[in-house]
């Protein structure tokens, strides 16, 4: 019994992580306080990192946790702490577009889900590839996709300049 559990352990864990990620995502819609929404998003991201690890791309899982949880969500939590605006009792959670939003999303999920479920045999024709590690990833990143790499560094410089400009504008506006 333990042998069969061990053999299918990665598939079982994949289903568990997928279910937990979906639960975390749905909680984001329902929770009232922004800090709890942030915690739900962090848990979804960590479960997604677990899924990436199960698929064999450990470095992408490490980057997911390092960049998303360790930088993006820390910034988000920091800003929620600074603004410290808790949803007051009278403030509604949802905008006026709740009902059309839910209906449209259900149609959207239905259409795409049907495509994924029933169009899938067409995808299986692609050959099962080999697992690649960080070595092959680094080689292909810096030889085949070097232009994208350089353009991304330009984007980051633009982001730094924009952040500095925002600080300067806000300092000038408020002394």
């Amino acid at each position, binding site marked *: 019994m333990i042998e069969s559990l061990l053999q299918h352990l990665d*598939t079982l864990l*994949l289903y568990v992580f*997928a279910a937990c*990620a*979906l639960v975390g*995502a749905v909680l*984001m*819609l329902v929770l009232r306080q*922004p800090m709890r929404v942030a915690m739900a*998003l962090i848990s*979804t*991201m960590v479960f*997604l990192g677990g899924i990436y690890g199960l*698929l*064999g*791309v450990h470095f*992408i899982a490490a*980057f*997911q946790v390092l*960049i*998303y949880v360790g*930088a*993006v969500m820390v*910034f*988000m939590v920091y*800003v*929620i702490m600074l*603004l410290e605006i808790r949803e007051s009792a009278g403030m*509604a*959670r*949802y*905008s006026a*577009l*709740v009902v059309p*939003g*839910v209906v449209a*999303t259900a149609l*959207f*999920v239905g259409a*795409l*889900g049907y495509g*994924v479920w029933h169009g*899938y045999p067409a995808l299986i024709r692609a050959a099962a*590839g*080999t*697992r*690649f590690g960080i070595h*092959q*990833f680094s080689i*292909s990143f810096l030889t085949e*996709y070097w232009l*994208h790499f350089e353009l*991304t560094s330009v*984007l980051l410089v633009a*982001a730094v300049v924009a*952040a500095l400009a*925002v*600080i300067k*504008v*806000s300092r000038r506006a408020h002394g």
Partner: protein
Amino acid sequence: MDKIQVLLALSVALFAVGLLGVVIRRNMLVMLMCMELMLNGVNLSLVTFSHQLGSTVGAVLVFLIFVVATAEIAIAIPIVLMLVRQKHTLDLNAFTSLKG
């Protein structure tokens, strides 16, 4: 029910939930977080296809999306901060001065 099918369905679900969150929620920070969720859904589908085909294209694109998402958040949050400084609320319906 294959592994790839489940992951692609999860990616669709995450993207749809994120989109619904951006449309439904009124708090600006929660809307930003739902946009991050949409990006995560797309990342999952890219990693799934990269795993299935065994090529590194998907992983490279995922890495670039990480960087772009970080840069986007680094600009979006100061914009939110400046808006909050004007109206002292995070409610989206308070910013209607461009409405016809």
